[in-house]
């Protein structure tokens, strides 16, 4: 059901062994466990529960560097927004923890959504 919301061609082209996204990601440089590649892979596998209830999807600053350089043209920003939308609808603990109110990211994050 949730998978149906994520259009297959958005993320399924992901090369999986690539990691350009993470090589560029400013968040990943600071937070060792944050991996845009793992997020895409998990979403592609349909393992959404852990993703939606976790904090990772709120860590993304929406800078867009990953998408800009992704050789598989994965639209990471759209993916994150959809995941956030679902998380908000489910009112996960992470939502409460992060004080998230919008799929555009955390207020006061210093960055506007792309």
């Amino acid at each position: 059901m949730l998978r149906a919301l994520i259009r297959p061609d958005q993320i399924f082209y992901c090369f999986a062994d690539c990691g350009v996204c993470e090589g560029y990601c400013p968040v990943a440089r600071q937070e060792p466990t944050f991996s845009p590649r793992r997020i895409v892979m998990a979403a592609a596998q349909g393992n959404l529960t852990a993703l939606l209830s976790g904090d990772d999807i709120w860590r993304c600053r929406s800078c867009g560097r990953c998408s800009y350089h992704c050789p598989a043209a994965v639209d990471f920003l759209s993916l994150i927004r959809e995941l956030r939308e679902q998380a908000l609808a489910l009112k996960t603990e992470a939502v409460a923890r992060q004080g998230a109110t919008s799929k555009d990211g955390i207020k006061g994050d210093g960055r506007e959504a792309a």
Partner: protein
Amino acid sequence: MGVKPPEAAVLVIGGGIAGMQAAIDLGNMGYRVHLVERSPSLGGRMAQLDKTFPTNDCAICILAPKMRECFDHADVTTHTYAELVELTGELGGFKARVRLKPRYVDTARCTGCGECLFKCPVKVPNEFNMGLDKRRAIYMPFLQAVPKKMTIDASRCMQLTRGKCGNCAKVCQAGAIDYAQREEMLELSVAAVVLATGFDLYGAQALTSYGYGRIKNVITAMEFERLICASGPTHGHLERPSDHAIPDSVAFIQCVGSRNMKHKPYCSAVCCMHATKEAILAAEHYPELKPYIFYMDMRAVGKGFFKYVQRAQSDYRVTYVRSRPGEIKEDGAGNPVLWYEDTDSSRVKSLTVGLVVLAQALLPSRGNDALSEIVGVPLDDYGFFRIEDKLLRPMDTVRPGVFACGFCQSPQDIPDSVTQASGAAARVAEVLAGQAGKVNAA
């Protein structure tokens, strides 16, 4: 029942390894062959390589005998510094017009001694060495060029553009310089055409994150090839551009432009192997040097290729890292710094190396655009000559009587190109046999 030698001529476009092989095979089968090569010499890209995988044969050592065999073949007429400008007619009866560009050198007199080089005042970037050094306006593309004749680059020659200089003519003991030479047009009647125009290199500066053009010590694979080659601009010393020092480590990055939806979605097929080869050469030249190869899939599919990769790891200290780096920055000493994800641990890491070598995407020859119009063979989305039936007739283009072999029709290495060249020759023979009675005499 015997088979008479065919009374027909065939046109081969491209004098690299594939074109030469097709010409030799067609000549051996008894066809009269006209081989047209755009540059002043036979040899193509293979002449620029140092060694070839997986045997590590010296490229020019195995290429030169082929160049001579082709050039000396009784049934092959080689036209270098020439281009096809028109092709009309059809299978069995094509008419080709070939422009023989003026070299401004009388090839009957020139012996390739090279005296003129010392006196030519003009220096321009040397294409053969990927612009890493200079050549003169009068030049031979490389020392083992076939034919061994000089050529004057008209656009750079002071005498031809401004009427000043004439040094080469004054020095030439054979009296071979001829500033008044004109182009000639050749009219050929041929029964079939084989395209073998090879490949060009994608501009690595398009991948801005890798810093080519911005960071001095980020170079391309072909530039590396010329640096490591004894006949190259540094005589085989791997001197990195910023300070001419030998790097203590080299990172080879695969799929630069290839397997990329925003650049070239296809796989260039040979880069995994040539990077392995280059890493081995670097380690061989410098026992302390540490090579790394950053890749997604290690495409070692041919005969002996997997063992070659294993040897690179066991005998030459090559570290294979499964990751496509994100960005490359530079530290204060000109060393490239790679930021990449270690895909096993999913952690971001950085690696500082002395030199980065980008495996740039390979494209079908840029000349294919114009040639496609002339020969009436469309190109596919990526610029390769379109093959009618990729399963059963892999060398037949959509135009009857016109065949294509080697990289100009799909990414492939030297053995596959040579195989396709011979295969194209067989197809020419098969198709022309079916045209008996309708074929123009040579």
